[in-house]
């Protein structure tokens, strides 16, 4: 039944006609330059985020996820450079701001949580000092006492036990999960509208991971913070995200509401990625389906589709070798915002719709 496909995506937040974006990235391009050549790490990536929306970014290691996040925040450092595109945050293009102007935006309107909390926290300063510094930077009117009270409040918010006492601890006295929550507390100190979390749970065990996700969930529902979650854990994406962007070789190759993406991956890379996740029912069936080959060298982008050398569908098609596929609307899915960058996107969608029609 094709209507069930359509229903999936509805209300899940893919509505391009909606103007109320808190963040809109258009055609962002970044590269790393070296003597050996220029690595085009982010190749015209666009993304839209509404208030309170949870967007996931997944994709192969090296596909440009972190470079994208850093570029959005103006944190990319040489040899990395943003070379094009717009980053419209709360209505203005922050890609045009200089470093000083950017400092007033970062941490206040948009924040990032990095993967490794130990290297991001200063080991010789107490947790409290680090949080109050951030608070006072954007809210000097609070004063020392006020900032400390706010910091304790924040630690409580992220569920650090005995916050009033443990605020004076040093990072090494916290467990990995607590440190990660402190990082989130610091990122939230000034109530940004947008939080980017780059692999915030990769180093954590399942229970701590669940705690961090519960916390992010609360943020979205209670404060309306919009979250971009970068992860390679597809279970987390399924649990947390409304919309998923799939990156490959510096491009967004597919974008869809979460339920659609898992039920009907249109891009062959997405399909391969989903199949690589170990599932209990695979035990008897031997090896996990992995993706043969390696991603293309981003220093010398070849003509054609960048997934071609590894694509089971494109193999033998001249079109795939010679022409870069353009982003195709996956019409028939959800509210119409789904896209896939594949020459056969239309056929794939049609197949899914047919399949659903015959099984109904």
């Amino acid at each position, binding site marked *: 039944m094709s209507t069930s496909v359509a229903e999936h995506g509805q209300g899940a937040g893919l509505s391009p006609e909606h103007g109320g974006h808190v963040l809109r990235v258009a055609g962002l391009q970044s590269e790393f330059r070296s003597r050996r050549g220029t690595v085009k790490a982010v190749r015209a990536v666009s993304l839209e985020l509404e208030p309170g929306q949870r967007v996931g970014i997944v994709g192969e290691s090296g596909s440009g996820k972190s470079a994208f996040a850093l570029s959005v925040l103006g944190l990319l450092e040489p040899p990395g450079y943003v070379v094009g595109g717009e980053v419209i945050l709360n209505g203005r293009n922050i890609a045009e701001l200089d470093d000083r102007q950017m400092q007033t935006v970062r941490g206040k309107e948009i924040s990032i949580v990095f993967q490794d909390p130990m290297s991001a926290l200063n080991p010789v300063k107490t947790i409290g000092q680090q949080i109050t510094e951030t608070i006072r930077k954007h809210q000097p009117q609070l004063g020392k006492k006020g900032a400390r009270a706010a910091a304790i409040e924040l630690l409580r918010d992220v569920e650090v036990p005995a916050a009033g006492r443990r605020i004076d601890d040093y990072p090494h006295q916290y467990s990995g999960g607590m440190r990660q929550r402190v990082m989130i507390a610091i990122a939230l100190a000034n109530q940004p509208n947008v939080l980017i979390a780059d692999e915030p749970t990769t180093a954590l065990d399942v229970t701590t991971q669940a705690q961090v996700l519960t916390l992010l969930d609360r943020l979205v529902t209670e404060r309306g913070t919009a979250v971009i979650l970068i992860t390679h854990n597809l279970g987390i994406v399924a649990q947390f995200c409304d919309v998923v962007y799939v990156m490959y070789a510096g491009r967004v190759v597919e974008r869809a509401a979460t339920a659609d993406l898992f039920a009907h991956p249109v891009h062959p890379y997405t399909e391969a990625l*989903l199949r690589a996740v170990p599932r209990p029912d695979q035990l008897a069936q031997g090896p996990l389906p992995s993706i043969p080959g390696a991603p293309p060298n981003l220093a010398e982008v070849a003509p054609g589709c960048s997934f071609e050398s590894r694509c089971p569908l494109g193999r033998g098609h001249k079109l795939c070798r010679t022409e870069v596929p353009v982003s195709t609307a996956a019409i028939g899915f959800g509210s119409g915002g789904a896209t896939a960058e594949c020459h056969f996107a239309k056929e794939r969608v049609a197949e899914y719709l047919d399949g659903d029609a015959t099984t109904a």
Partner: protein
Amino acid sequence: MSSTESTQAAGNGHDEPAPLLRVEGLKKDFISGGSRMLGRAGNVVHAVDDVSFSVARGETFGLVGESGCGKSTVARCILRLLEPTAGRIVFDGVDIGPLAADEMRRLRRRMQIVFQDPFGSLNPRMNVEAIVKEPLVIHRIGEQHERSNRVIETLELVGVTEQQARRKPHEFSGGQRQRIALARALILQPDLVILDEPVSALDVSIQAQVLNLLRELQERLNLTYVFIVHDLAVAEYFCDRLAVLYLGAVMELTDRERLFRAPLHPYTGALLSAVPVPDPAVEREREHVVLAGEVSDELATGGCRFKARCPIGRDRDICGEEEPALIAHESGHLAACHFPGELHWLVEPSASEES
């Protein structure tokens, strides 16, 4: 019948082949939190507190549990990179505790470890060939020509070409680096490989490649694995038998099927329920039991060490008074809980709908 691991391992009349590895009553204490500046004596952390298990040849034995529960410490004691506070490690029938340094070094050839971080564990200044060759040099095996051949063979085994071998680690992706670390561990042709979180830092497709490779090598070379992992989906896919550790002690120990389908310990149940499933339709229906609190280094005195966080033991006197022993509730299924199998609090709405 009290067929605990250690009596099983000691041979209980069955004609089972002797296990390759036996860990018996392993304990490891650390002093932590001491500060001369504050004039504070450190307190003792029982990082590993009476752990026993055995691993058969060709088997994959999993160690799972939250961060800080003692998994890596167990691994390092097995290799005697750390001296145990108490207990025995018996490798292929030999108690390694009393071995002299040179005897231990010879034995260590047969037991290798792959560390979690493929970035940190490879020397950035050496090229891949030198990195993989190094163990041969350290153990003075073969001469120049023979060593080079073996390096090429081993790299081939893990899918790294001869040309690539001249590159340095930073020129490889995470998955390739993990392959190199693996080649380095395999070049000595060990019997036992300890894998400490070998795929945690990898994306799923590379993770799949590495897991497939590990499986293939195990079959080809009859390797025995001790597999430390926090991703339970990977654990379920990969391990034959597993032990669940909590605060340094084994809470449950059994085969994969029973651990994941019919766990007895509430802690195992809570862990399993925390795993997100890569299926949004299931996720929407599911209730996650988020365990409150976290592992603390302070061991509860007396009673069950999981009590403070246990959803069923919280109000029961016996849980606070008596430490539950790790005993077999059915053959080959050990759990340390006074109320094994009481997992009704975990029942998921979607699961009950199906029946």
